[in-house]
């Protein structure tokens, strides 16, 4: 085995080979106080064991078997491996003690098969097996918190950071899953007080503390957004741009123009460019610009919402034809309409 000292600095590097023995490295910081300490055990030319001590943290590795992490002499994390650093073929391969829970992961046939999470008081939080579509989550006192039903099983990842089912997200009614899913939360008497239903990480409907929740494109909205009982000024003052766009589509730009009139930026022949303030908008969407035009053959006026960066009718028309505003301004590119009906 070859040992290199990477951090030793100029003229202090060394390279040595050894078959059996121990290497101890003691680190000092620039002030001379004690730093990291490392011990390596070499047997038959192979590294078999290491102990790394860095202040309160100690990592003990037996290569091909385990790695254990201690914090202030308390065992915090256990990882069990095969010789090639793959997770242990069968049984417990990961255990981590966290602030309020203990996470255990088990393998079968070399892949993760189960995740069990306990509260610090040893009560079960959940027991999730590979292929499970129905999951029960329990409170710290052992009472049932939630039941989750999934159409697609949860994928289990051996190296996932954190839990596969986020207890806090479930409790806040913000957890989402793949496929069709539904979960309900229980109160202390065991009755359902809240539930949420959705598809592919998008909530569709639910109840929180017996009050109905409404969603549009997965975003929670007030009831009036779904029932359509709003006016143009409500739409333009709505803070979320996704919902504002959805409401504008279903309400119709024409109705907004009729109701709010707006401010004319330019009027020329059969075209008029208008602008409306959006109080909750974020630059450049603090104003909505609308191009009104009259169809030459039907004489009907129709409206198109245009980019808020259009400064005049010329830019707005060419923008609707698909041209880039930079090209219109810099190269003078325009669409020359030879005939229109």
């Amino acid at each position, binding site marked *: 085995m070859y040992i290199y000292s990477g951090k030793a600095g100029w003229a202090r590097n060394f390279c040595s080979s050894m078959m059996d023995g121990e290497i101890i490295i003691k680190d000092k910081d620039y002030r001379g106080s004690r730093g990291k300490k490392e011990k390596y055990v070499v047997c038959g030319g192979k590294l078999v064991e290491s102990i790394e001590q860095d202040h309160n943290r100690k990592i003990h590795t037996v290569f091909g078997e385990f790695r254990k992490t201690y914090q202030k002499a308390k065992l915090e994390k256990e990882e069990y491996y095969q010789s090639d650093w793959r997770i242990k073929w069968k049984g417990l391969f990961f255990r981590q003690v966290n602030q309020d829970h203990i996470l255990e992961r088990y393998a079968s046939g070399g892949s993760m098969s189960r995740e069990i999470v306990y509260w610090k008081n040893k009560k079960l939080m959940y027991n999730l097996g590979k292929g499970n579509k129905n999951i029960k989550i329990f409170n710290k006192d052992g009472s049932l918190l939630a039941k989750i039903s999934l159409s697609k099983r949860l994928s289990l990842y051996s190296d996932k950071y954190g839990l596969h089912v986020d207890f806090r997200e479930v409790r806040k009614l913000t957890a989402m899953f793949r496929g069709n899913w539904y979960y309900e939360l229980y109160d202390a008497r065991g009755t359902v007080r809240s539930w949420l239903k959705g598809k592919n990480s998008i909530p569709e409907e639910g109840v929180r503390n017996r009050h109905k929740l409404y969603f549009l494109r997965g975003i929670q909205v007030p009831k009036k957004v779904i029932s359509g009982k709003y006016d143009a000024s409500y739409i333009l003052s709505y803070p979320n741009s996704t919902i504002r766009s959805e409401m504008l589509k279903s309400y119709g730009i024409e109705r907004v123009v009729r109701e709010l009139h707006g401010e004319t930026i330019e009027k020329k022949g059969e075209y008029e460019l208008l602008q409306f303030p959006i109080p909750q908008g974020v630059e450049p969407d603090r104003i909505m610009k609308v191009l009104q035009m009259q169809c030459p053959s039907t004489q009907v006026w129709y409206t198109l919402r245009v980019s808020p960066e259009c400064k005049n009718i010329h830019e707005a028309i060419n*923008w609707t034809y698909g041209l880039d505003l930079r090209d219109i301004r810099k190269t003078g590119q325009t*669409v020359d309409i030879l005939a*229109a009906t």
Partner: protein
Amino acid sequence: MKAYRQGELLFVLQTIKDVQGLKKALAEGKKTTVVAEGEATGHKHELADPATGILVDIEDAFVWIDNENPKFNNFQKILHTEKGTTIKHPDHQDLYLPGGTYYIRAQREYDEEMARQVRD
């Protein structure tokens, strides 16, 4: 850029150098006689006489003409007519298009959400 317009549809006249590319696009695109269908009314913009032009939908075809893909510029269909063709629609007057090749797209409308995604 020279174009003809019927309602919200834009027929952009093209000068094609890559004749083989055009032939391939016309052969591989999905043949149709309907240029576009009205979302609310169901009224169609369509070829008055399908024998006068070849109209193809390039949505699912790999089209490469004159070193560019018309889909990248939001064109949805290609129309080629040798001697000219007419587009009819119940609400609009007939639009006569002289012989040539046209890329077709609809007038676009600003969508705050889409623009935000592009900006992000």
